[in-house]
């Protein structure tokens, strides 16, 4: 059975080059970068080289890169690092839980948070940010690209608004870095989080960009690593992997591979629209990362479609799956105004660098058959019309 992995927004496979780059740092080059002897300095050189690669990926200076354990830590470090009790934060209703739960925690500690709505395409209106500013606003946190839909936010405009208001701007770029160009100066952000395992580097690695001059409180108390911003002996093999992944991602983007991937994604969407009735691409009208397609398949449950595709060797995801531990529909889709029954009927396809045209051909062979079987089982499938679909859109 062919196996096709279309859940790259959950995690990506490690590239062989990344693993080969990491390997020596598990064995002969195992030194602690803080040690003054030769082995330690060898480690230090590798660490700083990785830092340069990550910095280049996002257009930063190496000194502005703090290595973390991933996107969640980076987001938490950014938010807890600049916000205190009494401060106000502006964020969006569709942020990753790392941001939302950090904000909720800060609310219990005396901060105030405004959760901005998004439009039907999943985009924040920058004017709403301007309108939400208060004298005690300390931070704006809006993600660069959404994990469920791939929709890209108007971060450059948000950056300008934050700068005019003299408030910090953090953006979760976990789903953007390595897929679309990311430049911290163009965005105008002060803090930007990335995650290694979203760009074919190891899980448990990441980085937070911290613009020079940003007053960031460290979360961990300990040694002086990362210029006092993140204590703890560095995960050297992981960081080397992250640096290599960042370098390869930059090359991939420079070669125009992002556009090629977008063309594959578009072919997937066209094929599904052509051969499966009553479908809708969530966020289609907005700028999106080139790999993501979140599609409603009316009258069936997204979870059962994902499971049925898994039985065909095709890995996709749905935020509403019982397997995720929650029976609630994806909050991102609900925030976009999607009716709950349509949110529950959505499946996310997230392609990766390893996805081939033959993979898409196979998926397009399987999806119509699987959907037809599930619809035949559904009490809601009555050969409905497109008017029904339009009526249930907000």
């Amino acid at each position, binding site marked *: 059975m062919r196996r096709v992995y279309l859940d790259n927004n959950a995690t990506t496979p490690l590239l062989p080059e990344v693993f080969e780059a990491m390997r020596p740092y598990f064995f002969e080059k195992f030194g602690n970068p803080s040690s003054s002897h030769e082995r330690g300095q060898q480690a230090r050189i590798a660490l700083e080289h990785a830092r340069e690669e990550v910095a280049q990926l996002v257009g930063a200076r190496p000194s502005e890169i703090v290595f973390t354990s991933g996107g969640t830590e980076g987001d938490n470090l950014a938010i807890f690092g600049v916000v205190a009790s009494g401060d106000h934060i502006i964020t969006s209703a569709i942020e990753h839980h790392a941001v939302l739960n950090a904000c909720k925690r800060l609310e219990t500690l005396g901060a105030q948070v405004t959760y901005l709505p998004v439009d039907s395409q999943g985009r924040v209106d920058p004017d709403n940010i301007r309108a939400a500013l208060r004298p005690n606003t300390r931070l704006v946190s809006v993600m660069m690209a959404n994990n469920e839909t791939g929709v890209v936010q108007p971060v450059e405009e948000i950056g300008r608004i934050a700068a005019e208001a003299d408030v910090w701007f953090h953006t979760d770029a976990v789903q953007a870095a390595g897929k679309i160009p990311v430049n911290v100066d163009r965005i105008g952000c002060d803090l930007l989080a990335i995650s290694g395992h979203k760009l074919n580097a190891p899980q448990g690695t990441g980085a937070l960009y911290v613009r020079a001059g940003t007053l960031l409180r460290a979360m961990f108390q300990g040694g002086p690593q990362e210029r006092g911003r993140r204590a703890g002996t560095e995960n050297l093999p992981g960081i080397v992997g992250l640096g290599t992944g960042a370098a390869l991602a930059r090359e991939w983007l420079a070669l125009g591979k992002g556009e090629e991937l977008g063309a594959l994604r578009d072919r997937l969407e066209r094929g599904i629209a052509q051969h499966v009735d009553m479908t809708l691409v969530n966020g289609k009208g907005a700028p999106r990362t080139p790999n993501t397609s979140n599609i409603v398949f009316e009258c069936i449950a997204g979870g059962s479609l994902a499971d049925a595709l898994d039985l065909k060797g095709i890995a996709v995801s749905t935020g509403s*799956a019982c397997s995720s531990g929650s029976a609630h529909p994806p909050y991102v889709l609900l925030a976009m105004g999607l009716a709950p029954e349509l949110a529950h009927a959505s499946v996310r396809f997230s392609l990766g660098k390893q996805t081939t045209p033959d993979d898409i051909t196979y998926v397009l062979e399987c999806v119509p058959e699987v959907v037809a079987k599930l619809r035949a089982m559904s009490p809601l499938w009555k050969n409905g019309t497109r008017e029904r679909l339009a009526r249930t859109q907000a």
Partner: protein
Amino acid sequence: MYSPTVLDHFKNARNMGVLPDATTSVQVSNPVCGDTLELSLVVNGLEIAKARFRAKGCTPTIACASRLTEMIEGAAVADALRITRESLITSLGGLPEASGHAAQLALDALRAALGRVAASAV
């Protein structure tokens, strides 16, 4: 994640469909997850002669409905009413902890259907 029995019922659902001669047909939904289950029964006296289901739901919902119809077709109404959530789940080889609602939905449909039969007999 799913037991082989659950996967079997998902891939090869038993008793899927409708009954044109149904004694009763009910549709129940879980408002939280949006799963919807339609259960149709032909009840002759005190026996469930036929049972069919249709479902829009997650894999456990489809599996529970399929398995339940297997358990109740040909069974006495009284025996069907004795099926518990736990016995349904056990007969499927278990369900993930978060999927217990699927068994509950199936039993809700059964009790609603049999309740209607009882009400119409009064």
